[in-house]
């Protein structure tokens, strides 16, 4: 068997060319883009970064309500397939590590919570549901709700 025949040169040249050029180009790209673009929407640094304030309160019926006060961010019900990097979108509400709602308005009904400790998180999302990232990382706010046992 010959070391290499003519018909094998095409595929080998293609593999060598592509892998070689990727070995040259990918490191610099990866060094600048460390977070996956298909999951995160990075806001430009020249825009004011949204700040989240979150409060929870219990109503007379015992149900809990969450209120989001987000500066420099606009809530919208409109979703698109590929969003622009602008602070427009909605929030995902997560209770104890499980997503429970998409909040298109700043007031969210959490319903009745079982007694105990609950970690509630709000993560700002773009119109295409990608998680928003600012200069300091994920635009997220966590609070802890303690629900006392019924007397």
């Amino acid at each position: 068997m010959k070391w290499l025949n003519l018909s094998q040169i095409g595929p080998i040249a293609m593999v060598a060319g592509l892998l070689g050029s990727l070995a040259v180009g990918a490191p610099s790209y990866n060094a600048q883009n460390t977070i996956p673009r298909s999951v995160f929407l990075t806001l430009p640094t020249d825009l004011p970064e949204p700040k989240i304030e979150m409060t929870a309160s219990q109503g007379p019926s015992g149900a809990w309500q969450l209120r989001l006060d987000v500066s420099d961010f606009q809530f919208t019900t409109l979703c698109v397939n590929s969003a622009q990097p602008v602070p427009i979108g909605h929030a995902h509400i997560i209770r104890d590590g499980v997503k429970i709602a998409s909040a298109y308005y700043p007031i969210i009904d959490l319903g009745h919570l079982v007694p105990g400790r609950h970690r509630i998180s709000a993560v700002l999302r773009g119109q295409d549901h990608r998680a928003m990232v600012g200069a300091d990382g994920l635009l997220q706010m966590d609070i802890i709700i303690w629900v006392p046992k019924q007397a």
Partner: protein
Amino acid sequence: MFFQTTYKTGLTALPMTIAASLTPQVATAHEAWLLTPDEITALATAPMPAIFTSSLILGLAAGIGCAGTVAALHFEEFLRPYEKRVAPALKNMGSQIGPAVMRIALAAMLGLAGLGGLPRHGTALWVEPTLLVPDMQLSLVPGWEWVAACQLVMAVLLLVGLMTRITGLGLIGLSILGLPIFGAPFLAYAPHFIAPGLIIALIGGGTFSLDRLLSLHRQATILDPQIIWRLAQILVGAGFVYLAVMYKLTQPTLLIAILQHGDMPTFGLSFALIALIMTGVEIICGILLMTGRLIRPVSLVIIGAISFLALTLGETPLFHTNLYGCMILFALMGRTWSVTNEGPSSYERALA
């Protein structure tokens, strides 16, 4: 080592994944949509693995990839006499069951997408019709909701095997239409749907189709069948290369998070190295398909790999029936297209 294991596990896993898909379940998520909120939070601060930012390591990996390709091409020479021996039987099987396999595979995907039966994670079943794949929700593109109905009609036509070649052309049209509707993100999917569209337009309805029953199964003569067959292989291969570069090589932390989420066995390797190996193998397999080399072994490796990942990640294999259809046909027919039996199949003769 990893790929041998993947390949072997995948072969045994295929029947299990197909069986699992037949049981009622909420279709699970795809890629990024698999991750839990805590995993997304961790991913936002996950450091880029050093091997993906080092020219030296990637250069070394490229060298190993080239050496692997040379070895694979020599393996092809070694394999050739054995392949020659089994090729007629495989081609015969391909021309008899191939069209039905491809029709059912595409009908399943089109029908489920049209009905919202393949939703992405967090979306209820049967609520959000999509274009071919879970990520492409038609409700996000006002004015294009009618595409869901087109998909349903195409699914029924493929299932019964009526006007199969025209439906294949329709699928090509739909895949191309996805590009202006959804933009660049659809590039990840278009080649893997144009290719089966081309194949179905080439092979027609085949056994147990109304086309065959009504004698509408004449061979298309507009283009040389070999050109169409090779074009399908080139598109599938190019699709894999694109996915490997755009998603695995340049977003490796996402791939690693998904592998960790699935608690994938690592065989003592780091997740970063596994991600790099997966990227390299996908690129090499894609190029081999594009150049028409080792078509049968590459098809089996890909069937094994996607089955293994579906099992590991808990995904439904229905997300990839288009690829299963293509790979089964490539594995049976090989590099060149030839119809060994234009008349009634042995099954039909047995029934007659």
